[in-house]
Structures are given as structure tokens and as C-alpha cells.
């Protein structure tokens, strides 16, 4: 990997196991300096574990990891002066006032931002006497974001930065993160929110079951979804064999994707939609959502996670065993 030297982050073959469970299983990606980079994936995909390895909290079981050119495990001390971290939840003294939190964190760095000014910028009143424990979830998130930025980090890790925020606070936070990019700061974030990725991120890696499922800019990923298809959700189980017969499709092209989601791998033509609607009506199935040939990140995401579940279902146990017996 020649990129490794100039990248903000370089991950090659990252593996992290908890007992027999493989939280991250052979993940590789690079993040360029100044990028806003997202880790996206369903719960349990290994996003937070990956972040925690990069932050130096956890030691990788295998793989070569460089963050700002440093090994986060062995050179953690040097790394910690140059990164900012926002945990998924908590991390702030419940008994302190917001300004006290930032003054404390400012003292940890040689060159820190002004606590009062930063607090105003994230929309909290520096003179507020309320302690952290009495702040709303969104206010705590913004304070946590400020604490991640106080040391003028070159790289910030944000684990679900807008979780629990109202739409107003969310868009303010997006503005804030874009401003960071303008100053050359690299941002790595995890999120569940596809609109957040579309609105904010330069590149995204989609993770499923601890491995990379797709990587690219949101636009690149969306263009991949040209693969014509129809996605719908139903309020009751649908007989996919009968549906495939009805649509005159090969039975493998009608796929149950779990949680009442179904995917039809075929051009979403008016004719096919009409046949689908007729079939569902005859079987008295209600449609929840219906997407045809959609080029949203959501459809790519659903498609990729659905594929991953199909692979999981068909993958045989012995094959997995042999893969586990590495080294």
C-alpha cells in the first residue's frame, strides 16, 4: 500500500474477534486528509469496533493500521494529542457545567480553542449553570462534539454525532462538520442516517458483518444501483415462488430480504409494477414502501445488506471454519 504514508488513515486487513465472534473480519480502506468519511452499516456490522481500534481503545487481532502515520496501539500517546473523539454516548462528567467540561479538556492540549467561543459556536450558552446531567440529549451531543474539537485535532472520530438531535440541531451540526472540512480537518464518522451521508460525506464505506461491502463516494455508490430492481415492504409474508411465477421471472430473482422487505431483481417497468400490485391485492397484502429503480443511497444500502444476508444464509459452516483457521 503506497497510499499509506500520505493517508490520514490506512487500514489493511483489520480483524477483531471477541471470543468466537468476528466483529471485524478483514477490513481494508484508506481515508485521505481533509475527507469527511463515513462508516455505514446495520447494527452489529462492526462500525464502532473499527472506530475503537483506530482510536487506540482496542488492539487489532490482525492487520496493519496507521492513523496519521502512527500505530494507534503502540504510539497512542503521540496520537492522542492530534485526534478528537466523540463517543456514541456519555463521556462527560455529569456533575460539571458545560464550560467547566471544555476548560478541563482545553487544559489537556498545548494549543486549544477558546472554551467560551467554542461553546457558543455549538449553540450552548457559556454562562449556563445547568450541569451536564440536566442537559437534553441533543445538547449533550453538541457539548461532546465541542470537547472532541477543543484541542484543534487534525482528525476527529464521531460515533453517531447527530443521534438524538432534532432536525434543526442536526443541520447546525452538519454545517459545523462542513466548516471543519474547510479548515482541513479529517472527519471519520459512523451513522445510521443515509441522508446524513448524502448531505455530508465525501466517501463512505458500507460494512456488513464486519467486512467491507462497498466503498466510494455517495454518488458513485448511487450510480451502482442502476441495477434495475424493485424493493417493497409488505405487512405479511409474501409467497415469493408464487410471485416469481406471476411475474414470469426466475425464482431466484424474487428475494425476501428480511423484516418484511422484498427485492425483485428486474427492470421496474410499469407492467411489472402492475403485475406486482395485482398479485399483492389478490393476496390481500398491504404495501409499506415501494421503490422502483431508485438511485438513492438507501436502495444501494438495502440492496447490499440484503445481498449480505443471502450470502450468510447460503454460506456453509465448514467453509467458514477453514477461513477462521488463518495463520
Amino acid at each position, binding site marked *: 500500500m503506497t497510499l499509506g504514508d500520505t493517508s490520514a488513515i490506512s487500514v489493511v486487513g483489520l480483524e477483531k474477534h471477541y471470543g468466537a465472534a468476528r466483529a471485524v473480519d478483514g477490513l481494508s480502506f484508506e481515508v485521505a486528509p481533509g475527507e469527511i468519511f463515513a462508516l455505514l452499516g446495520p447494527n452489529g456490522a462492526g462500525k464502532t469496533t473499527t472506530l475503537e481500534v483506530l*482510536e*487506540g*481503545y482496542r488492539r487489532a487481532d490482525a492487520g496493519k493500521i496507521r492513523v496519521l502515520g502512527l500505530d494507534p496501539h503502540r504510539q497512542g*500517546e503521540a496520537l*492522542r*494529542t492530534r*485526534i478528537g*473523539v466523540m*463517543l456514541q*454516548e*456519555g*463521556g*462527560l*462528567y*455529569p*456533575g*460539571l457545567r458545560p464550560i*467547566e467540561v471544555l*476548560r*478541563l*479538556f482545553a*487544559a*489537556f*492540549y498545548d494549543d486549544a480553542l477558546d472554551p467560551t467561543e467554542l461553546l457558543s459556536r455549538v449553540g450552548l450558552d457559556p454562562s449556563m449553570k445547568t450541569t451536564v446531567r440536566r442537559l437534553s440529549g441533543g445538547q449533550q451531543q453538541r457539548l461532546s462534539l465541542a*470537547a472532541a474539537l477543543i*484541542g484543534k485535532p487534525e482528525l476527529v472520530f464521531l460515533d453517531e454525532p447527530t443521534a438524538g438531535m432534532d432536525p434543526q440541531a442536526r443541520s447546525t451540526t452538519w454545517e459545523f462538520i462542513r466548516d471543519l472540512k474547510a479548515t482541513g480537518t479529517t472527519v471519520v464518522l459512523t451513522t445510521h442516517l443515509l441522508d446524513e451521508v448524502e448531505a455530508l460525506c465525501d466517501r463512505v464505506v458500507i460494512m456488513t458483518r464486519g467486512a467491507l461491502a462497498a466503498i466510494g463516494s455517495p454518488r458513485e455508490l448511487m450510480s451502482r444501483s442502476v441495477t434495475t430492481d424493485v424493493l417493497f415492504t409488505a405487512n405479511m409474508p409474501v409467497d415469493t415462488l408464487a410471485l416469481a411465477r406471476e411475474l414470469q421471472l426466475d425464482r431466484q430473482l424474487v428475494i425476501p430480504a428480511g423484516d418484511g422487505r422484498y427485492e425483485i431483481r428486474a427492470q421496474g417497468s410499469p407492467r411489472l409494477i402492475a403485475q406486482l400490485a395485482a398479485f399483492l391485492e389478490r393476496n390481500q397484502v398491504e404495501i409499506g414502501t415501494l421503490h422502483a429503480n431508485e438511485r438513492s443511497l438507501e436502495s444501494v444500502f438495502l440492496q447490499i445488506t440484503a445481498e449480505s444476508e443471502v450470502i450468510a444464509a447460503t454460506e456453509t459452516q465448514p467453509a467458514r471454519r477453514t477461513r477462521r483457521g488463518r495463520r
Partner: protein
Amino acid sequence: MKFKAVVAQTRTELALTLRRGESLLVTLGIPVGVLVFFTKINTAIPTGYTKSVDFLAPGVLALAVMSAAMVSLAIATGFERRYGVLKRLGATPLSRTGLIVAKTAMVVGIEAIQFAVIVGVGIALDWEPSGSGLIGAVGVMLLGTIAFAGFGMLLAGTLRAEATLALANGIFLVLMFLGGMAYPLDALPTFLRDLAKALPAASLSECLHGVLNGPAGRGFPTGSLVMLTVWAIVLPTLAARLFRWEE
């Protein structure tokens, strides 16, 4: 380890401890209350003492160490662990050593306040400690602090925050009566006394009684000092090995 960071961390730890009402109650309220109450009712005192305050004041200093180094430290640290504060600090340039130094400074700071208040109240209750006795007491208290802070961190770093809270308070109460603090060890049934003497609380209070002009002819309780030293090695070592930064 950066000096500026450790100073800021120490100041924060102290401010938080002094702001928590329950921590003031256990570190100052209870020790002073025990000292005044049991002196006023002329509690049972072991042979060799003439005034009850002579027996109670050293024991209450031991109680103070237990409250600051074990109860208050354990509960605060346990909840910091629960709320991810310890984890978050782990991603800052304040090193683990820096955090431990700050917490130690906080405990010693609280104990300095306790020492001043308890000695002051004791003297007001007609206690007459010698200067050399008080200096010896400071040394013994520091050794006791190492033992009890080790125990506090062991609880905080291995148990859930609520369990730490309950256990630290429960153990405090039990040791108060099995530690020769408010109640003489000699008055306990034999089996209980032998058990108590092996525990760090009685070791600490016996040593404090020893340095603060204990009854003449008894001599310094060397056995208790050895026992306390062993606890001061074992408990922090266990804590360092078993402490988990995340709940």
C-alpha cells in the same frame, strides 16, 4: 504526563467531590458526628485510656481515611466508569498515570481537610495530641490511604456502579464497628476480634492509636503496621490488574 493537564484534572476531581452532598456527608459529617456523639455519651473505652476522646479521635482519623480513599473515591470512579468518562479521558493526552496522580491528589486533599477538622474538633473536646503523634498519624494515614484507595479502585473497576455504591457504603459501616473506631476491638467476641485484626480497618486504627500516644505500656502495634503494609501492597496490585476502564 503534562503538569497543566494533571493540575486541571485534580481541580476538577476536588470540585466534584466537594460538590456532592453525599460525599461531604460520608467524609466529614459521619466522622465528626461519630467523634462528637461517642465522646459526649462517654462510650465504652478500652483499658489504659482515661478519656473517651483519646480513644475516639485516632479511630475517627482512620474512619476519615476509609471514607475518602474507599467510599468517596470508589463511588465517584464507579460512576465515571459507568458514564464513559474514564473511557473518554483515555482518548485525551491526559495519560492513565496523569488520571491516577490527579485522583491521588484529590483524596489527599480531602484528607487534609478532614485532618484539620477532626483534630480541631478533637482538641475542642479536650483531646491533647502531641505534635510528634500528629506527624506520625499523617504517615500512617498515607499508608492507610494506599490500602483503602486500592480497595476503592478495585471495587470501582470491577463491579457495576450501583454495586460499588452499595458495597462501599456497606463495608464502610461494617468496618466502622470492626475497625476499633467507634467501638473498642477488645469488646468484640474473640473470633470476631481476630477476624477484625486481620482486616485493613483495624490495622489502620491500631496504628493510629499507637502513634497518637496510645495507652502506656502497650507499645507500638508492629503487627498491625505489618498487616496494613501488606494490604497497601496487595489491594492496589489487585486493582491495577483487575481494573476495567469500561463497564
